[in-house]
């Protein structure tokens, strides 16, 4: 097993004579490399049903501990994919809270449901043909004009994005601002689930980012230059030569600071 001391398999001594020596006594771990869960249990309610789970687990691991096997509602398990958006209430609070199941730790009395999918309105467009002007976002998604500034989208965003702020920027037609403000979006869809104006915020942000990347940001001059060189076959003779080299020849080039200097 990894990241701990005891389970390291015996290995050969290195030339400097170093050998593994245990420093601390680890807890047993399961096959996925997790530590043994805490013996202190809390009660969580998954879609209304009570389960006793260790207190220090994430919602995702707690649900697995409770016996759920995910098909939906579980993706990258690292906070990037937006598959595991979860809505919950905590004990004695009227507030509706939200988090990614893979990143949020359970608390006693947590009352939750996952929202792994929410129907969304997505327009089709040809980025190459659409102008990056102030009207384009409203043209594709006119419903953004219906925003009543309730801020529910911002309050529910598990990425702490100022969602209403970027919808305001979209209404003003400020593509750059929408692109920048919405950048951390993982498209979990929770904003759309709460919007009384039926806006699908994350698709507005996505359109703005694509327009910004393709149309507003300047193209790279050095990239265009390199493409010309590649299309002219400039590097082919050099690559022909390199591809025919033996391991020893390549290694000599690789370790020679004259042929492979490292940019500071």
């Amino acid at each position, binding site marked *: *097993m*990894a*990241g*701990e*001391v005891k*389970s390291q*398999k015996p290995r*050969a001594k*290195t*030339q*400097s004579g*170093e*050998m*593994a020596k245990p*420093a601390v*006594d680890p807890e047993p771990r399961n096959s996925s*490399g*997790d*530590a043994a869960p805490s013996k202190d249990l809390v009660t969580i309610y998954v879609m209304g049903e009570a389960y006793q789970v260790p207190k*220090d687990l*994430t919602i995702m*691991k707690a649900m697995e*501990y409770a016996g759920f*096997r995910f098909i939906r509602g579980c*993706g*990258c*398990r*690292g906070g*990037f*994919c937006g598959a595991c958006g979860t809505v919950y209430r905590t004990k004695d609070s009227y507030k509706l809270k939200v988090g990614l199941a893979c990143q949020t730790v359970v608390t006693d009395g947590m009352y939750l449901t996952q929202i792994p999918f929410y129907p969304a309105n997505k327009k*089709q*467009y040809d*980025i190459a043909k659409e102008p990056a002007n102030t009207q384009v976002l409203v043209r594709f998604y006119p419903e953004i004009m219906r925003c009543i500034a309730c801020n529910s989208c911002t309050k529910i965003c598990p990425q702490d994005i100022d969602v209403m702020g970027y919808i305001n920027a979209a209404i003003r037609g400020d593509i750059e601002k929408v692109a920048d403000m919405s*950048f*951390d979006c993982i498209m979990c869809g929770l904003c759309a689930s709460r919007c009384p104006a039926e806006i699908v915020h994350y698709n507005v942000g996505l359109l703005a*980012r*694509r327009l910004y*990347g*393709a149309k507003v*940001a*300047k*193209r*790279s*001059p*050095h*990239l*265009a*230059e*390199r493409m010309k060189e*590649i299309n002219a076959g400039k*590097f082919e003779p*050099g*690559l022909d030569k*390199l591809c025919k080299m033996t*391991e020893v020849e*390549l*290694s000599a080039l*690789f370790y020679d600071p004259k042929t*492979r200097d490292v*940019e500071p």
Partner: protein
Amino acid sequence: MYPASMQESIKRLDATRAERIKQTRIPLLGADAKKELLKGFHPDYIESSMRALAIGPNKGDRTPHELADLLEAWPIVDRAKFDTEHPKYDVDVLIIGAGGAGVSAALVAATHGAKVLTVTKLRIGDANTMMAQGGIQAADKANDSPERHYLDVMGGGHFKNIPELARALVSDAPGVIEWLEELGVMFDKEADGTMITIHGGGTSRKRMHAARDYTGAEIMRTLRDEFRNQNLELIEYCVAVELLTDEHGTCAGAAFVNLETQEHFVVRAKTTMLATGGCGRLHIQGFPCTNHYGATADGLVLAYRAGAKLGFIDTIQYHPTGVAYPEQIVGQLITEKVRSVGAHLVNCEGNRFIYELESRDITASAIIRECQSRNLGVATPTGRLGVWLDTPLIEVLKGPGAVKKNLPAMYHQYERFGIYMDKEPILTYPTQHYQNGGILIKDSGETGVKNLFAAGEVAGGIHGRNRLMGNSLLDILVFGRRAGIAAAEAVKSLEPPDGGFQHVAAYEVELKAAKVPPERRSPMLLPEYRRPEFKTPFAFAECL
């Protein structure tokens, strides 16, 4: 939020920071020093962790037990449940998997006029692509060249890479960046359009392009949006359980099970492409992993049964910096970009011990040596060991606010657990990250099985024995596009095939001769993380 036991060591780290800033770069290791470090401490070198395969095209090759258990295994589904005479779909190109490789292949194959169907186990974009943070390499600056990139790739792979594949990788790289730029990927740029590029482990030029620390997510959500714009056909939550082959062993499509309805169906295809990703969720040697839930090596299993040869399957990449604390997110990725922008790796006494941007296998081995052999790791309350990444140093080097600006995703991840990485260091230990090898391909993505293509992490040979940072986002797009074109072009001279499971029956003869136990089944489909009392053997098989 760190417990008192760890605070002591943080004080030592804080105390040495000023000295470390003045320190000159730790010299790069030479060839012999690298060999010794790998041999002593890289997990691939633990003899008992692997075994020789008993059957199949790679018979005799050293393979991690966890993967060997899936390759030497019986089919998970009774094939009598599939009606191969009446395929539900009849297409030109079938793409299995909808991460970066599959989606880019679908886009390109469709523009080449093929009727394309993409089928994926989870959702489109549910892939390691989405999680890649640090960047994508391309030699597109004046001081750089594809030749230089080639040399770096080969050096990183210990010169074992297949030359034609490494050449395709570096030659297509600038074109891939251009394609992404046209699609609207928001690369980090200067005002005049110059790409902001940095070093990655093992690069000799700053050629790592990034979109903050959401590079893979930004690429994936853009490709996915384009896929939806093009109205390409997609089926989600359906898992491939077997390939189909005709009487000559040529691939003819695949058999699927709908994970939600349990429907069994067959797709007939003139060409088939595997873009199913890697094997992170096998937890090789019990390591935690950085990978997506669906990274269960299914593609390797299917291709192997159909007769495709695999390569470099004895080399697993352990990312040097996985989370070692807090326990809830152990094993998750701390992007290499943290080191690229200046953070030092520091042991419990506050000292550096390796140049931070050595290639990943070297850096990972050095961290393991620090913790396991030199006794200079920092212990967590659950008994893990790790070393520090001095992230507050980034603020000193690049100015206040630099951590939040360059690493918003990382900052957010730690903030959730009350750790502020602009003020406190973070604890790391290697974590299983990448399958260096896979199905052997040609530079067109063709595998050893006729009309079967592969691209992305499921394919092997490009990176030799160790992949460099920023070359996997590149790899999936270079070979996704190449395989997409080749698969679409190939269909022009092909008739709809008649596929069956002859190859599976033949494989079963070998399984029987090798006395593989009947309860060992594959592909895995999804990992099993429930408590033992909930686990029924092959729970999915029962509903299949």
